[in-house]
């Protein structure tokens, strides 16, 4: 039985890792998701490759291209999840552009998520203004629609977190995904503000890559690491397991 995301993360010091489904191929993707879970990842985000990943930086764009070359389709991503579920009970979250879900059909997609026990979904191009239909369906299928809050969200934050489920994805810097050396201290204050508004755990992401960064977000329930993990896979496409485990353990040790 897979635990709810909220339950896993409420203890704090959570670690959420990200991979692109099919990078470098679908068999290795499954192995890496399992390896991350075994190394201590509390939640694994599974990215679905898109032709035009406009919210992503170069690292994840390239992973999308590798996944596309491996023949990624929505159906293959569900097959991957089905296999992963036979090997680990780690909570899973999809990260996908809206068009992938829309063309599949919102409800059909959520039904598959339920079937394969994918707990949540992040759609970076489905903001508050456009999400009502999907959120209602997600509730129907008991899937978490993950809300994003950014340093620019300002007075929009109360409305956004009102609909929060799973965790609140706190975007810690301006810009797109990718590793950065300097993260804004403003993010700390943003997390505090969100914690005051909701009981849903906060997870901070976008640019987290070094162990010494995570301590800056002691007020968050989790950190999200994407590009740094994708880079490890890019560097060691067919034997990344030990590097991933070393990285996750190193992050968790200081966290």
């Amino acid at each position, binding site marked *: 039985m897979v635990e709810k995301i909220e339950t896993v993360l409420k203890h704090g010091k959570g670690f959420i890792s990200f991979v692109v489904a099919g990078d470098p191929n679908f068999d290795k993707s499954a192995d890496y998701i399992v390896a991350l879970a075994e190394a201590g990842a509390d939640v694994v985000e599974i990215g679905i490759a898109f032709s035009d990943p406009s919210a992503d930086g170069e690292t994840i764009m390239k992973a999308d291209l590798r996944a596309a070359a491996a023949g990624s389709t929505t159906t293959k991503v569900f097959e991957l999840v089905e296999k992963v579920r036979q090997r680990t009970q780690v909570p899973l979250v999809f990260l996908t552009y809206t068009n992938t879900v829309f063309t599949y059909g919102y409800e059909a997609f959520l039904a598959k998520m339920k079937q394969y026990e994918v707990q949540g979904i992040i759609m970076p191009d489905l903001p508050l203004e456009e999400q009502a239909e999907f959120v209602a369906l997600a509730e129907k299928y008991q899937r978490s629609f993950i809300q994003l809050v950014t340093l620019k969200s300002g007075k929009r934050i109360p409305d956004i977190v009102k609909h929060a489920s799973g965790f609140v994805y706190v975007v810690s810097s301006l810009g*797109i995904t990718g590793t950065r050396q300097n993260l804004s201290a403003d993010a700390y204050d943003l997390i505090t503000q969100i914690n005051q508004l909701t009981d849903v755990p906060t997870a901070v992401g976008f640019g987290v890559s070094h162990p010494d960064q995570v301590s800056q977000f002691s007020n968050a329930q989790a950190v999200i690491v994407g590009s740094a993990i994708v880079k490890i896979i890019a560097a060691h496409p067919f034997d990344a397991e030990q590097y991933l485990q070393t990285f996750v353990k190193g992050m968790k040790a200081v966290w």
Partner: protein
Amino acid sequence: GYYGEYGGQFIPELLMPAVSAVADAFNHYKDDAAFKDELKDLFDNYANRPSLLYHAKNMSKDLGGAQIYFKREDLNHTGAHKINNVLGQALIAQRMGKTRLIAETGAGQHGVATATAAALFGMEAEIFMGKEDTDRQALNVYRMELLGAKVHVVDTGTMVLKDAVNATFQEWTKRIDDTFYVLGSAVGPYPFPEMVKYFQSIISEEAREQFLSQTGKLPDAVIAAVGGGSNAIGAFSKFISDRDVALIGVEAAGKGIHTTQTAATITNGSQGIFHGMKSKFLQSPDGQIDPVYSISAGLDYPGIGPEHAYLSDIKRAQYVPITDDEAVQAFEYIARTEGIIAAIESSHAVAYAMKIAPNMKPDQQIMVNLSGRGDKDVAAIARYKGVEINE
């Protein structure tokens, strides 16, 4: 922000405040008298408006049917309708206190227009252009640089227009405070499709008056080429409530709608969510956006503005495909017949007029929106015809 079920604001949360601020500014200034006066001054004394409504007598006589009129947007400063939108958005940006314009561009026309407006307004300009396009249109890159703009080569994805749009949105998320994204077509998240329509509507506003004063009646049909659809929505807009005026958008069929070398979105596309909007797109069953093709760089886009998708659904406008071959023939035809070298984009619209005019009566009238001049296309047409040009 919706046209029927199309439109919306499908963009990252990070951009929502910026886009909302643009929407607020647009909704404020579009009815602001001082803003409108300044815009009119820019239109009249910089963009060279009003543009002519030209009776193509030779062509009308030769085809032997309807009277054909060209709305001559090619006579605008910088040579296309693009300047209308760019001046409007730059003026909004100035009112919002922005000092830097960013824009995507395909072949370079919108980039040149944006760089032009930035020069006029004393703003910075940075233009994003796919590497395929900077290679093919090196001269336009230099033209933008002459105008003081910085050109960023986009080497991600398929390295063409849609990737340039992606890159410009990304750039905007990195630097919102002083920066305004001047979107070039009637696409993207609200308010862009509405704002682009507002600024391009000057085309049909003028044309409607010109038809009444020059001919005493409205046209029977208005024909415009559609890529994203900014010149078409501008040409249609003020005629939409004239139910007797047929509105016809002409899509680029490329090598044919039964091939993959096409850009005919309404004809071959399906509903999707991309570039901030729900509309119709050429895409895989999985929602992966297709690479598309047309001889016309300005029509070579996998989507269409949301209002066009809506006008098609409700059958207020009709969307038809025209192939490369047909467009090139029309390009050559009006050069020889009227002494006008029109953009290959606009030539798609001319090609469709050539199909329907002979079956209409001499007292009927067709307006073709000549959205731009074709000097930029002469080399490509020569290549298409297999003529060796050593430049």
